[in-house]
């Protein structure tokens, strides 16, 4: 295996560069110290908000070396302008990006400034005044900032938070019912205080409340209006002013934004550009200030065409195969192990991403705390070893026999050519170990999202996976408990794994939780419940004079409020 398995860890900022970066952080940008955090490691894992299982508290702002320059306009590209913007009824990550400009959450990622590494999942208060008080393991008390107003001028109160969470949980068209299902009780002692009681001790509470989806707070009068799908109305840093269907969206600065002095830009314009060549051309011709998610090929084009631009690689997207482990032949772990060993990940990387990316992945993608595959006892299953794979297949299904199966995946419209190419190459490679695969390419919206993506498939399925910022992500992958949404696509039924997942979820001390997570990693690696491809790299580019900006793996664009143009 290649020695790049700690790729993302190497990209996390060192302690020294963290201090350097902090020196240009804008006025008012909150910084955190972790209570009880004594980790001085240069690896900076201490910046993880989940560390030690204790909640961060607000510390002093970092030294300010550069004076922010308010004003001006900022523009960036997205692959599409979403059809609907309602945060309650959409899981689209693209909608979430835009929600981040106009809506607020209880907490938010402390992301987007030079002192925060792209994969740092530290949370900071958003609507909340500070991180919650935790009188016991089940209770979280949030004090709200006093000056939070929706864009319609109405004061936000704790009742609005209750309404939003209740709507996510109970509205019949909500697609986020599972995310907040850990909530047992919501109380509003006064308009500025919000109290949550969880059903069980739940270590990822703050990550859900500050996460990307199913957490935006929108006022009732807007959420229940017909405009909810076409207009965003929250309390965020930018007011949504107009949408040019399929082309662009415009925002202006929210003059009453509660987190002064943000935002710095007067206007933000978002262009939906589906054509990759056009995205490259528009940035090359300096017509947009930020563009992102480029694989190595277009990245290199932009490096030549815009040598002046700032850039950063962030962790990309890792594809994975899920299988019907509840039925033969994939209920035999030897078949699954053989499939993993029958895939030549390096050849796929060479063909699609110029050989770049994280070679080997488990269910985590970019977790700062995750062990790398090469450090797992089961690392051999990621080695391309056709002879060993054939032996495993023969032992499982009999010498000389083959498996006929289907491989369902989305068409090109959602995830791009590289995703399809990965499927084509892997299917061809797996033929060598006795898998005769019928490719089933499905229209993304009308078929794939409603069938394969919901677990309605036979044989094998294939989807991309973005990074996840909460450790309990593993539960979504493998729980066999009553349906909680799009989970357990491999139909895993493993009591030992279930018990470990339950255990880690309630472990509030990080070190203890990590021990459990280590056991889960090894179990999942041994069983190969899901089979993982390499993770690619995605590069952001932004103008040279855009200051106090850094990409984040967590996407939503609230953090643009911290950026200004240093012209």
């Amino acid at each position, binding site marked *: 295996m290649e020695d790049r398995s700690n790729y993302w860890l190497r990209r996390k900022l060192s302690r020294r560069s963290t201090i350097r970066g902090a020196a240009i952080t804008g006025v008012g940008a909150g910084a955190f110290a972790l209570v009880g955090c004594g980790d001085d490691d240069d690896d900076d894992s201490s910046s993880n908000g989940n560390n030690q299982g204790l909640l961060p508290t607000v510390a002093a702002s970092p030294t300010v070396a550069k004076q922010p320059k308010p004003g001006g306009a900022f523009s960036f590209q997205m692959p599409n302008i979403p059809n609907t913007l309602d945060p309650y009824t959409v899981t689209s990550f693209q909608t979430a990006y835009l929600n981040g400009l106009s809506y607020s959450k209880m907490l938010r990622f402390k992301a987007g400034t030079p002192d925060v590494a792209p994969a740092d999942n530290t949370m900071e208060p958003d609507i909340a005044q500070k991180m919650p008080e935790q009188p016991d393991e089940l209770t979280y008390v949030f004090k709200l900032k006093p000056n939070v107003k929706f864009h319609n001028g109405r004061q936000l109160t704790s009742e609005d938070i209750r309404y939003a969470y209740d709507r996510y949980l109970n509205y019949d068209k909500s697609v986020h019912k599972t995310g907040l299902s850990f909530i047992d009780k919501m109380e509003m002692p006064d308009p500025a205080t919000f109290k949550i009681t969880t059903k069980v001790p739940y270590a990822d509470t703050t990550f859900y409340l500050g996460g990307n989806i199913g957490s935006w707070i929108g006022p009732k009068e807007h959420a229940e209006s017909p405009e909810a799908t076409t207009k965003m109305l929250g309390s965020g840093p930018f007011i949504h002013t107009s949408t040019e269907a399929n082309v662009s969206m415009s925002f202006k600065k929210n003059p009453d934004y509660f987190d002064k002095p943000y935002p710095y830009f007067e206007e933000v314009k978002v262009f939906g550009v589906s054509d990759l060549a056009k995205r490259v051309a528009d940035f*090359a011709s300096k017509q947009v200030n930020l563009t992102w998610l480029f694989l190595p090929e277009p990245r290199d084009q932009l490096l030549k065409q815009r040598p002046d631009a700032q850039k950063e690689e962030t962790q990309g997207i890792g594809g994975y195969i899920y299988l019907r482990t509840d039925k033969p032949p994939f209920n035999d772990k030897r078949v699954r192990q053989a499939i993993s060993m029958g895939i030549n990940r390096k050849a796929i990387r060479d063909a699609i991403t110029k050989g770049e990316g994280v070679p080997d992945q488990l269910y985590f993608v970019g977790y700062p705390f995750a062990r790398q595959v090469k450090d797992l006892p089961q690392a051999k299953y990621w080695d391309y070893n056709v002879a060993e794979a054939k032996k495993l297949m023969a032992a499982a299904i009999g010498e000389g026999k083959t498996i006929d199966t289907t491989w369902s995946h989305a068409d090109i419209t959602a995830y791009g050519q590289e995703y399809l190419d990965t499927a084509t190459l892997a299917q061809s490679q797996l033929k060598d170990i006795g898998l005769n695969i019928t490719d089933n390419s499905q229209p993304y919206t009308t078929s794939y999202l409603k069938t394969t993506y919901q677990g309605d498939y036979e044989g094998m399925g294939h989807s991309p996976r973005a990074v996840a910022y909460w450790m309990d992500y593993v539960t979504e992958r493998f729980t066999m408990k009553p349906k909680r949404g799009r989970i357990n696509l491999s139909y895993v039924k493993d009591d030992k794994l279930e018990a470990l997942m339950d255990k880690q979820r309630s472990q509030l001390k990080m070190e203890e939780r990590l021990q459990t997570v280590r056991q889960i990693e090894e179990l999942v690696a041994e069983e190969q419940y899901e089979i993982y491809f390499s993770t690619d790299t995605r590069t952001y580019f932004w103008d040279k004079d855009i200051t106090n900006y850094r990409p984040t793996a967590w996407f939503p664009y609230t953090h643009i409020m911290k950026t200004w143009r240093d012209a």
Partner: protein
Amino acid sequence: MSQYIAKRALASLLVLFIISIIVFLAVRAIPGSVCTIVLQTNDVDKQQCDAINKELGIDKPVVTQYFVYMGNVLTGDFGKSLITKKDVWEEMRVRIPLTIELTLLATSFAVVLAIPIGIISAMRQDGAADYGLRFLTIGWLSIPSFWLGTLLIVFPAKWWHYSPPVGYVDIWEDPFKNIEQLYMPAFALGLALSASLARIMRSSMLEVLRQDYIRTARAKGLRDGLIVIRHAMRNALIPVVTLFGLQVGVLFGGTVVLESIFTLPGLGGLTLSAVRFKDYTQVQGLVLLFATVLVLINLVVDLSYAWIDPRIRYS
């Protein structure tokens, strides 16, 4: 003449009627349940589906549905989009000007290029210019517009760091910026048409140039330019106009891809998006609109013959 116009108009209405039936039935023949599209989930029960079917009027017999739908269409009500819930006609109306502008620009490019090329090629038959221009037009015919569009985006950006202004500005707001946003897709769209037109113009001109009246004009000592412009070109235009009418439909189809590549908010982009999201009511409205435009263009082409060639009198 008026009888001819009336006949052609009636024939056009008949064609539109047949098209409306085909479109209406084709949309209903597509497999899948409308209520899963409306609710954007497979997890729907019969009660929900019944309510949606009733709301959309698809609980009635197909014949009734058709007449209700067409009755509404005639009053300008194309229904509501299944996905965005917006008025289908309104969604189309705001995009019509852009697509018309793009198509007009593309046809302008095509005509401006094609007519001189066809004439020069015919006048220099079998000469170097003729071979060169024929080679060029065959090349243009072979280039798919979406590929040319991509090249037009990639190379100016690579060589000169230039690409058309992002977003979209209405022509009445900023005409220069608007034209700058549209000239590339229009050129990509119009080039293949110009090649077809140039080739038909050439062969038509060759035929006309061999006519006795052209020989007579030459014998009278008229200059070549005058002969071509006054006597030959107008007569040679009839097949060109016929082809032009047919090809405008192709241009409309081409906008579907090019508007997406160049991120323009026209009918083409809307069509692509409606098809992707299985927005049947929107697709139905769009196909009807495109069909109506095509039928109207063909009607105009038929009627224009009389203007181009006064000998044609539709008695």
